[in-house]
């Protein structure tokens, strides 16, 4: 009950924005300066303090000179460990790294590049996001990638959001942490349904019939490789022979193109179902090696093939009608 109230409060009141001054995503490398690094004892630290108190009382009661020595040595160690915990996080630099798009229902991964500009190694730095947590060590003057996994339940644009960087090194008595809000996001593609490609359909402008059935068309010849060609269609044996990359060229594809159209979708489908269907078609068309185009309200992508083309189509589907982020560059980050 209480926890849910507290959670609601945090969710509604932009607590972090108010207290920690985090509202807008930060672009570029984020340096964890002293102002944004916080230190507090952990629960274990409090237990440690309690144990020291008991040890102190025992030493007083039994007049144990060495008891004082041990108790105070541990107290000194604990105090000093706070400085080392702080040092382990402060002045670290966080940069947005690679982020891979994902289908709705999957898990997006964001690479945070942690750069250690200092002359000492840093250990066990945690990057936390929701319930996810990963820890890395960053040697002196090196950088290391912390791969943060974020669940992507919904189609659209997924910003990484607030990531907590934290450490308890060296002895776990203190927790030092900082919040970062890197300007980083990925397109979450619609989750494909399990439909088939639409039936063959005559295009008025080409006069030919595009085929969709099995047997993937007839092999028509080889042409030089162009960036974007699917590796599946590269003629590896020929490439070996000829000394250059060649792409298999299929009949019925160069001549006629498959258009995946919004208007072909059954009217019964709602928006998300339509996008899911289209995403499925894109995948199937890509799989089959067709040249395909996408036509949806407000967007048209000329027919093409290859991974880059496929991703462009899926991204367009992902961002359909979604509030585009301010800086959204709907490409692979």
């Amino acid at each position, binding site marked *: 009950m209480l926890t849910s109230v507290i959670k609601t409060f945090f969710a509604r009141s932009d607590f972090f924005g108010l207290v920690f001054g985090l509202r807008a995503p930060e672009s*570029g490398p984020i340096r964890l300066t002293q102002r944004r690094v916080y230190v507090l004892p952990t629960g274990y630290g409090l237990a440690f303090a309690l*144990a020291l108190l008991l040890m102190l009382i025992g030493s*007083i009661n039994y007049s144990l000179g*060495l008891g004082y020595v041990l108790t105070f040595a541990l*107290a000194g160690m*604990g105090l000093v460990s706070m*400085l080392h915990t702080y040092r382990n996080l402060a002045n670290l630099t966080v940069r947005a790294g690679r982020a891979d798009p994902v289908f709705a229902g999957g898990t997006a991964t964001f690479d945070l590049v942690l750069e250690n500009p200092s*002359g000492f190694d840093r250990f066990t730095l945690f990057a936390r996001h929701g319930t996810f947590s990963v820890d890395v060590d960053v040697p002196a*003057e090196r950088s290391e990638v912390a791969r943060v996994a974020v669940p992507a339940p919904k189609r659209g644009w997924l910003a990484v959001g607030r990531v907590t960087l934290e450490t308890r*090194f060296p002895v776990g008595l203190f927790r030092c942490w900082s919040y970062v809000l890197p300007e980083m996001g990925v397109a979450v593609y619609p989750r494909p349904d399990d439909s088939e490609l639409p039936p063959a359909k005559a295009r008025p402008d080409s006069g030919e019939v595009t085929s969709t059935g099995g047997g993937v068309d007839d092999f028509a010849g080889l042409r030089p490789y162009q960036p974007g060609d699917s590796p599946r269609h590269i003629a590896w044996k020929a490439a070996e022979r000829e000394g250059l990359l060649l792409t298999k060229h299929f009949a019925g594809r160069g001549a006629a193109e498959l258009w995946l159209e919004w208007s072909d979708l059954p009217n019964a489908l709602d928006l998300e179902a339509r996008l899911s269907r289209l995403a499925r078609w894109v995948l199937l068309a890509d799989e089959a090696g067709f040249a395909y185009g996408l036509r949806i309200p407000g967007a048209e992508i000329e027919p093409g093939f290859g991974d880059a083309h496929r991703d462009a189509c899926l991204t367009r589907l992902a961002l359909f009608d979604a509030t585009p982020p301010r800086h959204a560059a709907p490409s692979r980050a």
Partner: protein
Amino acid sequence: MPRLPAPSLYLLFLGMTLAAAPHLPRLPWWIALLVVGLLGWRAWVVQRSISLPRRWLILGLAFTTLAMVYLHYKTVFGRDAGVALLVIFLALKLLEMRTLRDVTVVVLLAYFLALTNFFYSQTILTGALMTLTLVVLTTALVGFNAPRRRVRDNLKTAGVLLGQGLPVMLVLFLLFPRVQGPLWGMPQDAYAGMTGLSDTMTPGNISSLSQSDAIAFRARFDGEPPARGRLYWRGPVFWEFDGRTWRAGRGPSSQFYRFEPEGVPVQYEMTVEPHNRQWLFALDLAGQVPQGAYGTSDYQLLSRQPVRSRVRYPMHSFLDYRATAGATPAELDYARELPPGVNPRARELALRWRRDAKAEDDVMLRALDYFRTAGLRYTLNPPLLGADSVDEMLFVTKSGFCEHFSSAFVFLMRAAGVPARVVTGYQGGELNPVDQFVVVRQSDAHAWAEVWLPSRGWVRVDPTAAVVPMRVESGLAAAVPDTEPVPLLVRVDVTWLRQLRFSWEALANRWNQWVLGYNPERQRDFLHRLGMPSPDWQKMATTLFWAVGGIVTLIALFVLRRRLSKDPVQRIWLAFCAKLARAGTERRPSEGPAAFAERAGRAHPARAGVVQAVARLYADLRYGPQRDPEGVARLARMVREFRP
């Protein structure tokens, strides 16, 4: 759940073993067996990556051992039972620890277990062993917080943490307001096993004490210590005899401590080891009463609290005196009382002396003569005596120890109508040439007699000295036959061994005085010397706060200082960037060398060429495949000569 790092687990086992090891000989044998077994089991689990035993098994073991501890100690509270339970539960917890939280809790408990060793021993050796334990446990703790690191690095970190914590420890140790314990009633068994004089004297109890070379107290004299034969350290005084055992009886009649001093007093400082009784020792007769103590009419110094921790007090004594207190008619009558019927032959002998003698001192001298000439033998192992103990000792076995002789002497005096009492304490002592402390051991325990002579007051008579003058002149070892079991080092002939022991004991004494004996008084002295004449609680707390704050700030400046890069090329580059920053062109974190040089070149057009060259050379050296030492030197020169 990530796997716990095995090296750190082994270190934790080692740390626990070190913390528990000194306890094991004190604990019932089955606990040692259980601990070794559980440790082995857990190590096996780590080695073979098998699963931990089920929880009910651990719970069952816990209840079983709890019951066994109760059966052994008849309690589960108190010092010994508490330690036994801590050791067992820590070992059981090993088989129940699965998460990082579990292991860190075990580390905490192991720190606690290390402390409990100090209940039993606070010697330098124990201190060293626990320091090692502290380092091992802290290394393990660091390891659990950095599972990918090597043990050697973790050890280094633990060393750094403890080392940098040392100044804090020192400040807390010196300035934390000390309170004299105990804060509450101590467990019954807290002071078991302290050796020292007893509050009764039965034939045999001093001779068994003589087997111990434990230190009873130390004295540091201003100047030369008096001759050994004059070192009579007064302890409990006994008035009442039941035929076998001497007791304080009704005890001293008052706190009327008075005598007439003669001559110049000897000044010295006493450091008495805890013995859990009230006696404070001083040379006959003490010229002052220590703080927190009182004197009695039979010249005992009694502390108001039992001596449960080492006490130190300044003292001066008059070796020559006329002791006239404790001599009211009632007291003198009490000092003539004897149990009826026992020792008829001794009584007869005493009455004969009484008839022949003119005065009390004549009786005393005849008795002393008798002890000198009767052929008595001084031995640590006197034969057992029956109901008429004095008769048997004097006429049948003819051998005894100081308690037999003093007992017999006082009996004879009382039988002759001369008031007399038994005084116990220590006689002699050994000067440690290393630190000039006179060390008095339990083996110096002694018993003598005091006789009331109307002309001179209470006079000390040592019948043992009459039997074996060597005892008083040279000590126990010289006085008893070579075959008798005195502590090895009391014998004089092993010179180098004695020298070693002198050095070690001097060190141990300094340790006692400064580490263990740093009590409220010492702290007041220390603060006084620091310029705080009358430190009260608040002043001390404030001082402590600022001192710890200051020290931690200094350590923080040291820990958080900017480290120069390990890479010389990087260092030179940063110096270059700093120069440009001072000139108003600061490198942005996102800027690489080329982009920065381009921008800086635009800002300082006159220097654009140099800036570009430095940036290119830096990029080559830092990121190029091979580093040319000449290039590094050139870069250094370029940056040094660079003026934006």
